[in-house]
């Protein structure tokens, strides 16, 4: 989130899209309700189902699953055509005036941009982005047209590109009535007026598509056009589904990054100098990359290695994808031999793979599950639909019993980036141990084994600072959490004192810091910032003395944009920063250099970007510089806007033979979602009797028209089939999903929660046995929210 939960109270209009706030983030609804009650705010819910968020909204916009990108394109079209954008903001804080290379073009027949080329290794296309760049003068300065009239300026390119995203076309694509679309556009684009705030909140119903990054970009671009970034009540707000998905991302449990969003080293950069040169831009905040990277290397290897040696120890990527779907494909090919799963249950939560069921786990030599229950992934060999007998499965499986939240101390980062301390209230049951201790014990043994026996390239393991960092002077296998916090916060290697925050970090190896973004969260051992519990008495709800928010306790990022170039707040009712009597005053921590006069800081309000201004047009994405609509990989319709286009041509394709084409008999659109009473793969909540009582079993939502045609009654068992598999569950015949009509054709949608599996107190079919392993070209997130299947009564 660019903003945070309490900040919702300042919004004038909300769009909840690709998420279901009332059911999946129920408590956050109170801040939406507060804005509605106190300032008459409006809530627009965009969802194929009449979900509980829709039920309490001011306007429900039903869309065919997979067409959020078309809807966002229409809102952009509406803002541009009706001049609803925030002109002064767009001119000063975005790249609207920048001139783009004259050779850049868009091919409307094919739905592709200049630079498209075949990429047979990936079964897809990719882009040479050289024509997507800014025009520059001889000295490298970007050429601009501040009148916004030049045909090569971003603003004019956008006006041209979004012409086709008119209400006729978008109504045809989405199946949503024109009047509803218009009402939504008018309502939300009213926040383009200076002083008004529009808030877009979303979840996996935006991201889990082959065009997921385009959906998110659509939200960001609209928010830039309407001047909704960096202000109170605005923002691009990803509502996180797990208590620490934000923190696990910040700590980079992701193949492509290191902690604090530093890039993972690539094999084309074998030495530290190569890495720093490739990853350090000439302007923007990332000029500090050497300080953060070198401090991270020191946090990993301390005095046991030079910076150069420490860099060589880190694994280098081979230019290929190594995310969830990719690692399962490698498993099927026999390359992955062992797997370690911390509180993760991929057999239920991940998309299905090729022909093999249960994710090819039987291919593994060993599988380690660190969890609080016996989940489906650890018990894959017991699955009732497993084709092999247990006696035929050679995989060794280990369960290391771990802890739930209140059984251990530590921090978690919520969606609003608040790093909050979670106090331990009781011991874990039996012999279960904290995940921190299990991690510590495991690597300690591995290190001892390499020290005793040697092995393949032992140095990266034996030189890592571990026991001396976390377990020194403690009983065997005990780990000191404070010492981990200190490492994450950062300290001076010389005297061991803690750094105040990341501004103190150096690139000369004199500081160590495990995650620069978190630096400052634990800089005072007596009263660490992340343990603060002081509520704000007056202000705008920033609660600066409650916990700690990254970066540098800023609660609204890019908050220079909350005031005009002269430093006057757009909204004096909820001012974030403002210039008064020769200095900046703030209700938040300024996310810019507040020592500079306002006109100067206004030149680069988006401090992370080299150009310092928000990107309406971006060459930083792999598939499209402007948010574009593509159909999902499995779609029942032709592309309305671009006749020869279908789904995203740059998608990450893994099992091309496991995708259904139109006309193969799979013509019902399937979408998946969560319910309030269960959590993700359900391994926890399906073992909680109170929650099972309220939401006892798996179901499939079927609209009344389809149910009648198929002879399905409420409560009947139905079989749902995709090209990848079949499941059975009870039908819930409902008015919540309607049959869609578009262009004289009808489309049926069925919906399923993905919480069930074969273990636990409540068992049921896994919806993800049907979902495809195809991913977004930027993130490789799987397309779980729109795919094709069929349904029949059993």
């Amino acid at each position, binding site marked *: 989130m660019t903003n945070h939960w309490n900040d919702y109270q300042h919004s004038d209009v909300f769009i909840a899209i690709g998420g279901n706030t009332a059911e999946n983030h129920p408590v956050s609804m109170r801040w939406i309700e507060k804005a509605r009650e106190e300032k008459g705010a409006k809530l627009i819910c965009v969802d194929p189902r009449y979900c509980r968020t829709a039920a309490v909204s001011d306007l429900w916009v039903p869309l065919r699953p997979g067409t959020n990108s078309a809807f966002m394109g229409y809102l952009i079209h509406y803002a541009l055509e009706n001049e609803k954008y925030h002109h002064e903001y767009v001119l000063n804080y975005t790249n609207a005036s920048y001139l783009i290379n004259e050779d850049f073009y868009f091919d409307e027949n094919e739905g592709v941009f200049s630079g498209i080329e075949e990429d047979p290794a990936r079964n897809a296309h990719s882009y040479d982005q050289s024509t997507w760049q800014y025009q520059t003068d001889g000295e490298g300065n970007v050429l601009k047209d501040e009148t916004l009239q030049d045909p090569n300026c971003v603003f004019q390119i956008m006006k041209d590109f979004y012409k086709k995203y008119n209400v006729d076309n978008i109504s045809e694509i989405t199946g949503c009535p024109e009047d509803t679309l218009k009402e939504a556009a008018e309502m939300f684009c009213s926040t383009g007026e200076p002083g008004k705030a529009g808030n877009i909140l979303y979840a996996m119903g935006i991201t889990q598509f082959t065009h997921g990054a385009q959906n998110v970009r659509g939200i960001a671009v609209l928010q830039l056009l309407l001047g909704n970034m960096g202000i109170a009540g605005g923002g691009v707000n990803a509502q996180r589904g797990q208590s620490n*998905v934000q923190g696990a991302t910040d700590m980079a449990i992701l193949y492509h990054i290191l902690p604090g969003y530093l890039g993972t080293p690539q094999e084309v950069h074998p030495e530290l100098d190569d890495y720093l040169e490739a990853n350090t831009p000439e302007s923007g905040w990332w000029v500090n990359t050497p300080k953060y990277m070198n401090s991270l290397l020191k946090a990993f290897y301390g005095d046991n290695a030079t910076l150069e040696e420490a860099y*060589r120890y880190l694994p280098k990527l081979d230019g290929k994808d190594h995310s*969830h779907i990719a690692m399962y494909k490698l498993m099927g090919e026999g390359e992955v031999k062992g797997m370690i799963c911390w509180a*993760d249950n991929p057999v239920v939560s991940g998309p299905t793979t090729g022909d093999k069921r249960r994710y090819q786990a039987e291919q593994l030599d060993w599988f380690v599950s660190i969890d609080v229950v016996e989940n489906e992934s650890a018990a894959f060999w017991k699955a009732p639909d497993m084709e092999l007998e247990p006696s035929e499965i050679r995989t060794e499986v280990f369960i290391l019993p771990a802890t739930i939240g209140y059984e251990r101390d530590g921090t978690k980062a919520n969606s609003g980036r608040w790093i909050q301390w979670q106090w331990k209230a009781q011991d874990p049951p039996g012999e279960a141990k904290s995940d*921190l201790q299990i991690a510590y014990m495991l690597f300690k043994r591995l290190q001892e084994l390499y020290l005793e026996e040697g092995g393949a390239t032992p140095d990266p393991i034996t030189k890592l600072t571990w026991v001396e960092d*976390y377990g020194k002077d403690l009983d065997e296998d005990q780990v000191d959490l404070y010492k981990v916090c200190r490492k994450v916060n950062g300290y001076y290697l010389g005297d061991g004192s803690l750094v105040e925050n990341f501004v103190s970090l150096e690139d000369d190896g004199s500081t160590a810091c495990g995650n620069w973004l978190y630096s400052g969260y634990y800089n005072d051992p007596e009263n660490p910032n992340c343990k603060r519990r002081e509520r704000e008495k007056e202000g705008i709800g920033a609660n600066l003395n409650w916990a700690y928010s990254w970066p540098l306790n800023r609660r609204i990022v890019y908050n220079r944009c909350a005031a005009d170039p002269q430093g006057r707040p757009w909204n004096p009712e909820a001012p974030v920063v403002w210039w008064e009597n020769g200095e900046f005053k703030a209700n938040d921590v300024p996310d810019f250099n507040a020592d500079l006069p306002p006109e100067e800081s206004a030149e680069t309000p988006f401090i992370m970007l080299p150009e310092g201004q928000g990107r309406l047009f971006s060459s930083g994405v792999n598939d499209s510089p402007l948010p574009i609509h593509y159909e999902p990989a499995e779609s029942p319709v032709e592309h309305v806007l671009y006749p020869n286009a279908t789904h995203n041509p740059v998608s990450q394709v893994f099992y091309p033979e496991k995708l259904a084409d139109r006309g193969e008999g799979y013509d019902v659109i399937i979408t998946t979602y969560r319910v309030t009473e269960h959590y993700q793969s359900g391994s926890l909540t399906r073992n909680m*009797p109170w929650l099972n009582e309220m939401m006892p079993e798996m179901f499939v939502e079927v609209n009344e028209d389809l149910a009648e045609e198929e002879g399905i009654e409420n409560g009947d068992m139905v079989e749902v089939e995709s090209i990848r598999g079949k499941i059975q569950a009870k039908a819930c015949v409902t008015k919540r999903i309607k049959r869609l009509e578009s262009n004289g054709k009808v489309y049926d949608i069925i919906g399923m929660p993905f919480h069930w599996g074969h273990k636990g107190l409540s068992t049921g079919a896994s919806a993800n046995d049907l979902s495809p392993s195809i991913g977004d070209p930027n993130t490789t997130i799987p397309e779980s929210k729109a795919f094709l299947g069929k349904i029949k009564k059993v």
Partner: protein
Amino acid sequence: MKLSRRSFLKLTGTTAAAATLAGTGFRKAHASYEATRVDYAKEIPSVCTFCGVGCGVICHVRDEVIVSVEGDPDHPVNEGTLCSKGSAYSNLSYIFDEKGKPRPNPQRVTKPLYRGPGESDWEEKEWDEIMDMVAERIKKTRDENFEHRNENGDIVNRTNAISWLGSAFCTDEENYLFHKMARAMGVINMDHCARL
């Protein structure tokens, strides 16, 4: 605070959900609340373990065990409220029998478990032994599949043979250790639920 089962359901706003599925013949279960179990309990603040809202909770602890969890009224985001999952948080440790007496949730794993090749059941292990076993498996797999240099002769220090998942359920400090140890092992297949 006294809660009957009826007011618990009302508080958590789940009656609507129950109604939508009524008529599908879902089985009925029984549970009741021991209303006085928070008396004399120590209050310890913590954070809810479910979604990303990050609600504050108060754990009521008596004789070193949690007897109840409720919303933290001082927390700026939830101000004392919780959803149905958060309200049921203590169910992860304790469930209640027909008479409303708490007992440990039997679904929790309390001992390290091992399933050998071809076996059809779990076997309990001691921590020391199972940790040695896991460390040996990692070492063997890494040693047999480690790529120190690539075809160009550049140092790459990686292995494709080990995959790592998670976790968004663990703390920042735990995830920091996970990242540090995984990279030292040469792991490049690494992901968590941000994608799922």
